[in-house]
């Protein structure tokens, strides 16, 4: 039986119990995309946690590969509090949006950069999340322009726009997105109005790909805002 063993850098996105002490782990890797692995005895392995850079050795050819061993590549990212919620949100979005074994070159660097930038307490977390969402859509081929509408005409600051999925922005008298704010967003001018618009815009843009079930991590943020 020829099973080749290979090794790569990986980040745990999701883990769920399997049999007595094993785990089914979804990991994000650079060259292989999102993979699902069986980790025998994985529930006793403190390394197999999200937000920790790992170096993994895997074998197997099918959909479900076997984790042979894992090593820590660096200390875990110290995500705490709201930053931890953001990290959980990012993982949930990736689990919904990524197909298995479909590698996207620039995704892992984006993931790692976003998580790393989230760690300082003073980080503008919503801006980091919006940038992540915008670039993720772009990487997956669902991206759209903020400076031109779907026909290629420049965005007019005095018009209202709406977002059509997979097509882009379109002038619409009852559109919820203001042209001037869209242009500010394109310039990364993060004033409060623009942040709100960016949140609604990304929500609308992601919705078709997330499926019918609402994202549970958004509920965590609701708790934060209640204070």
């Amino acid at each position, binding site marked *: 039986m020829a099973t080749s063993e290979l090794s790569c850098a990986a980040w745990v*996105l*999701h883990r*769920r119990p399997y*049999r*007595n002490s094993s785990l089914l782990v979804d990991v994000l890797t650079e060259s292989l995309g999102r993979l699902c692995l069986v980790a025998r005895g994985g529930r006793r392995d*403190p*390394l197999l*946690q*999200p*937000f920790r850079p790992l170096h993994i050795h895997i074998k197997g050819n099918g959909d479900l590969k076997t984790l042979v061993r894992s090593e*820590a590549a660096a*200390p*875990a990212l110290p995500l*705490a*509090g709201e930053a*931890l*919620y953001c*990290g*959980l*949100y990012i*993982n*949930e979005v990736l*689990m919904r949006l990524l197909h298995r074994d479909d590698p996207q070159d620039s995704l892992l660097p984006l993931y790692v950069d976003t998580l790393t930038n989230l760690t300082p307490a003073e980080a503008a977390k919503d801006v980091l999340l919006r940038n992540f969402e915008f670039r993720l859509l772009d990487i997956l081929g669902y991206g759209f322009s903020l400076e031109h509408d779907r026909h290629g005409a420049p965005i007019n600051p005095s018009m209202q726009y709406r977002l059509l999925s997979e097509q882009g922005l379109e002038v619409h008298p009852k559109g919820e997105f203001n042209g001037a704010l869209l242009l500010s967003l394109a310039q990364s001018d993060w004033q409060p109005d623009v942040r709100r618009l960016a949140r609604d815009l990304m929500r609308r843009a992601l919705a078709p790909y997330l499926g019918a*079930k609402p*994202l*549970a*991590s958004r*509920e*965590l943020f609701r*708790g*934060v805002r209640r*204070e």
Partner: protein
Amino acid sequence: MKHAPLVQELIDAFTCLPGVGPRSAQRMAYWLLERNREGGNRLSEALSAAMEGVKHCEQCRNFAEETLCPVCLDTRRDQALVCIVESPADVLAIEMSGEFRGRYFVLMGHLSPIDGIGPRDIGLDALEQQVKNGSVQEIILATSTTVEGEATAHYIFDMTHGTSVSVSRIAQGVPMGGELEFVDGVTLAHALRGRQKVPHSS
């Protein structure tokens, strides 16, 4: 080979247990039928009695037969000191330590947005109610040290914001009888950060 319908049903019923596949289910069913009918009867009575009679304690969500569990009813325990754990097994583990004289709040899980488990699914709305009505003075967070356990702990900590409830998290460090060489780096880092002064004996 086909089993008699009743035997087949018994085998199928056993497979609902964790870690029991068709093969071990068949072994269990045969063993009870061939050699231990009495044990089998006891098992079936105990099962149906427990499934009927065991509910969740209204205060701490642990298993209970009455509206409150024995721990919540115990007046010798400090009912304002609440230790928050993920499962009934954790309650047992802490009880075994013999160190704790308060009561518990059992989440029966942890926050795990990716699996669709939000604050309400682990009873945090009930806990919030208890915090708000002033029956809780101190909370000890004893959720696991996984990412989900940390998120749960933080959420509960946030919830107590603006109240007079004092909140602490159980310490993490080197296990008893553990040799440093074999302790993982994260635990060791925690242990170093949470180090304690050795008092001079007078």
